[in-house]
């Protein structure tokens, strides 16, 4: 979680200094969800993420130096500089793609679930999406398909309350999106996404159910992004009050872990020091790597 936070803080810092060529969407504040969910998964379980996916890649074990190189558009990046922040992949750890299209991930997860079931593998697929995506038709199609075919899919809905600037309250008619699961005939649960212990517990239940062959689960994680939707969108002001942002920061996931004594202050300091060193090395690695040669634009179009 610390690495996930520091990675995104570093990315914002680099963006602010004009050293990052494409857009970024940070998950600062939301880390307990990706890291908690991924903590339950095996290396060969699959994960699909949204544009706000860096934390999931850290959580599932993608190398942060290759991630940073991808953000900086370098040939040593996860995808040779072709994906930028929004289309990371790291198949070695089952990370089959971030996605720049809101709502595109769930149908792809259904297909991965179909293949797992067809080949009778002991794997699951987790697909992250947001409250904004919950209004996309493709998400509804995917949930119905996964449920009717009892596929090993976990729908991980990060409800951070806002689809860019639009509050969920204005565009979603239910308070908890987890209730929609009933309409597809699968379990749904609303989980405190700031509490990593709760995230782990809910995910364990869903993963067990998926591995048993009983089908998908919708997990709605209540969470909050501390910063704007993307760079250029301020932390608070146009659509969120300072008080609201601060009220979520008061229940910060990292702080909660310390308060509960899950790690000591000393351990936390060690973890942070290690993470800072890794991020510093990642930036050094990325910045010393070359950009792809222009003619590489013509490679990897056809498989």
């Amino acid at each position, binding site marked *: 979680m610390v690495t996930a936070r520091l990675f995104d803080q570093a990315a914002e810092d680099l963006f602010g200094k004009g050293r990052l060529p494409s857009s970024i969407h940070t998950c600062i504040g939301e880390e307990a969800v990706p890291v908690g969910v991924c903590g339950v998964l095996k290396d060969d379980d*699959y994960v699909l993420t949204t544009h706000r996916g860096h934390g999931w890649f850290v959580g599932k074990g993608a190398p942060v130096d290759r991630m940073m190189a991808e953000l900086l558009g370098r040939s040593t*990046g*996860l*995808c*040779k*500089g*072709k*994906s930028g922040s929004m*289309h990371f*992949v790291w*198949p070695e750890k089952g990370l*089959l*793609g971030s*996605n*720049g*299209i809101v709502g*595109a991930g*769930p*149908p*792809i*997860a*259904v*297909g*991965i*679930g*179909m*293949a*797992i079931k*067809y*080949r009778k593998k002991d794997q699951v*697929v987790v697909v992250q999406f947001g409250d904004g995506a919950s209004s996309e*038709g*493709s998400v509804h*199609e*995917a949930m*119905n*398909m996964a449920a*009717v075919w009892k596929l090993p899919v976990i729908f991980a809905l990060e409800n951070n309350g806002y689809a860019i600037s639009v509050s969920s309250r204005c565009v979603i008619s239910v308070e908890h999106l987890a209730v929609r699961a009933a309409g597809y005939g699968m379990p749904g649960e609303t989980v405190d996404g700031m509490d990593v212990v709760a995230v782990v517990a809910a995910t364990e239940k869903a993963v067990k159910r998926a591995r048993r062959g009983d089908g998908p689960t919708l997990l709605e994680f209540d969470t909050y992004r501390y910063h704007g939707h993307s760079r250029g969108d301020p932390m608070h002001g146009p659509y969120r009050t300072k008080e609201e942002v601060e009220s979520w920061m008061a229940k910060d996931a990292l702080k909660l872990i310390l308060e509960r004594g899950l790690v000591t202050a000393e351990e936390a300091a060690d973890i942070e020091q290690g993470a800072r060193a890794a991020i510093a090395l990642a930036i050094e690695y990325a910045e010393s790597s070359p950009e792809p040669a222009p003619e590489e634009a013509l*490679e*990897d*179009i*056809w*498989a």
Partner: protein
Amino acid sequence: MPEMSYIEAIREAFVEEMRGDDSIIVYGEDVRLGYAFGVTRGLVDEFGPERSFDSPMSEAAIVGSAVGAAMVGLRPVVEIQFSDFLTLTMDALVNQAAKVHYMSGGRLKAPLVVRAPFGTVGVFHGGPQHSQSLESWFMHVPGLKVATPSTPADAKGLLKTAIRDDSPVLFCEYKRLYGTKGFVPEGEHLVPFGKADIKRQGTHAMIVATAPMVAKALAAAETLSKEDGLDVLVLDMRTLSPLDKESLIACARKTNRVVIAEEDCKTGGVGGELAAILAEEAIDCLDAPIIRVAGIDAPIGATRSLEDFFVPDEKRIIDGVRRLFG
């Protein structure tokens, strides 16, 4: 070489490929019973419900799930019941399937095939939402291959190639052609992508045709031979992506006069691209302006008079060739 229909040829490709590769699964709406045109009928009997099955009526998720299944090692072949419904799958085709390989820096691939029946039927009239030919939209997308078979033999050979291809393929089938018959090679008959086929040799002019217009172009060429003494070459592009520019240009250089025939609306259609290639790379050899014989720029009405007015026939192709000799 057995004679069979376009539908039977497609089904033969399915059966041969599915027997040899258990990573191939076939699904879509009404696939089990083979509605609406019967192409997949019977596959479930040989291959079972795990490999040939009905999906919910969810076009976006049908193609989206095919992308996911393909990314992890299956070779899904999915059906969209009418090509007009491809509008509901655009994100999965354009932003997902066609981009997976590139976005992942070559680390992932999506070997899926999306089949759909294109164009008008002729014997009944589907109207504005069941008759269109939208192939040109898809040849515009790098990373997506587009096959447009005009004969049973090409249908079998191109589908077998499509299924084995590691890139996503949109396989355009033609309602007008489903019942047409032709000789089809048995067994391992593979038609390469990006290789146009000269369906009739000629030296005086060329008709470049796609899919259902090929047969009409051949009939037009026969008439022009008898009535005008013209020796007209007919070139069938066979795949729109990759596009066989070399054959297109070589045939233009041989004949010096070109008509392009397609069933799509004229504006922004396949013919416009073919004409632009010839204008850019072979205009020096042309003795007359390129003529496009295409559908009119209007929706396709649901009755005979309106549909017939839309769809170019043999006579319009003949008129086009005659105009070349002004």
